[in-house]
């Protein structure tokens, strides 16, 4: 049994992959509590897909340099978030605006990428991640920006709580509501970029939504929900990676399926 657990750790790529997956699992899960509570699940999924053109432009310009990839993705994420906000101020409903931007940006990304010869391989990596190919750069990126995201959530805990629970109260208290809303969008964009390599764009929303949704079934207390969500995210990352090591299935889906399994358990438990 112990050997079963230790064998994968003798491979450096597995250690890097595990570390990255745990960081991503925790950061996505904590931020995810706000996404779930504010009903932004669709938005998170859309934003993840919409950063593709940025990543591709970064890829084409940087020639595989990872800093370019993350930077491109972040720019695209922020532009899309603002774009959805702009459309929304007009006469377009929010989910419609999200749907339009999401599909448009995603198509643009694929169109750009289709000009490259290694098109299908690259697209697969962007869409489904490649956690076992995580580089040291990526580990640092996840570590530093992941800590910043968590720190920001802690520092702005009570403001984010008020604006999520009762936006009108936030206004009557003269909280900087615009700043706080944009801050949350920025945090989502950063988190998506730092999770890109680990889970990929297509499965990102599962990491953002599923652990938090599971936790919301188990507790009715926000701080507990955040900690539970983080635990479920990290546990899914580890279990998923071991599964993928031994059963030989793709790592991203293995992690997401583990999350989904936990959700099913919690759901069944609630029904009993």
């Amino acid at each position: 049994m112990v050997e079963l657990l230790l064998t994968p750790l003798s491979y450096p790529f597995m250690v890097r992959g595990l570390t990255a997956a745990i960081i991503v699992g925790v950061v996505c899960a904590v931020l995810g509590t706000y996404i779930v509570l504010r009903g932004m699940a669709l938005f998170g999924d859309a934003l993840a897909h919409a950063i593709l053109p940025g990543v591709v432009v970064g890829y084409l310009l940087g020639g595989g340099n990872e800093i370019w990839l993350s930077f491109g993705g972040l720019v695209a994420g922020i532009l899309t978030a603002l774009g959805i906000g702009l459309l929304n101020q007009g006469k377009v409903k929010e989910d419609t605006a999200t749907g339009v931007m999401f599909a448009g940006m995603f198509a643009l990304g694929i169109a750009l990428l289709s000009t490259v010869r290694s098109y299908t391989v690259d697209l697969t990596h962007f869409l489904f991640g490649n956690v076992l190919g995580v580089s040291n750069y990526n580990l640092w990126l996840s570590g530093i920006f992941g800590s910043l995201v968590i720190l920001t959530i802690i520092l702005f805990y009570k403001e984010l709580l008020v604006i999520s629970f009762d936006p009108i109260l936030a206004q009557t208290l003269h909280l900087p509501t615009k700043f706080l809303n944009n801050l949350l969008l920025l945090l989502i964009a950063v988190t998506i970029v730092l999770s890109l390599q680990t889970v990929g764009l297509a499965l990102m929303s599962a990491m953002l939504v599923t652990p938090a949704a599971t936790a919301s079934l188990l507790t009715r207390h926000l701080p507990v929900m955040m900690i539970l969500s983080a635990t479920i995210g990290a546990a899914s990352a580890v279990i998923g990676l071991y599964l993928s090591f031994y059963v030989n299935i793709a790592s991203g889906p293995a992690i997401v399926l583990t999350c989904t399994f936990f959700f099913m358990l919690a759901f069944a438990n609630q029904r009993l």
Partner: protein
Amino acid sequence: MVAKTAILQQVIEFRDKLFDLQPQIRRTNFSLSKPFRQTETCPILELQNVLVRFNETLALDNISFQLRKGERVALVGPNGAGKSTLFNVIAGILRPTQGQVNLPHALIKDKNEQFAIAYVPQRNQVDWRFPVNAAEVVMMGRVGQLGLFHWPKRKDWDMVYEALELVGMAKLAKRQIGELSGGQQQRVFIARALAQQAELILMDEPLTGLDMQSQEDIFAILEKLRQRQVTVMVATHDLNLAAERFDRLMLLKQRLIGFGTASEVFTTDLLRQAYNGQLRLLETNNGTVVVEDSCCGGGHG
């Protein structure tokens, strides 16, 4: 350790200055049981020719009035009369298309110190499954005074529990809000307004859907608020309660049809102007009897 905290404090202050994020100065040694500021003579709020237009709809037309400190006002009018819109304008959530909302200068000592207006939302606007308990909801009222990067202190929790005590909810402080009855939920939100140290509380239909006992509980709390000189404005569809339990009534239908005591405002003529065919008015020897179309009952004036 000490040095660390001092440095952290400096960093925080620097950030606040840099981004001008600190929305309010923090008041010190404030207690709920102290009376609020003494300014009975001047009006607490004044609206001048306020007009609100949403695209083509005129929601509020040329509204002017003053509120006195400590009074209890009922805001009545048919559906779509503009009651919620008026609250939004007063609370500063909605900027009027034309006109002005004035808060008397005597009350604003410092430009950073906001005149505290609290808004108790309609119950159907709240997500009752949200993972917070009653005490945490009340603490949200303190967030403005706390300022960014400051955690609630002992004093703030004391205020929260004092407010909960006043509305008779201290025992249920740890209950998740969805597990409270409608009347209890309403009381939690009133406690939040108290923790906010509001001097004007706007309540949007707080009595709707409550049984007689819960309504009486709310009125008992309103009575305590009156002793503290807190001004309260309540939007309601219950003309009967409006006539009997409030100092003044405001009859609204886009325009301000009437504002005064029940006998001044609930006249056949003014009620007709506000409700058109939506109310059945019976002329009797003792005056006008209102028979509401929908259900339940009527009022008289």
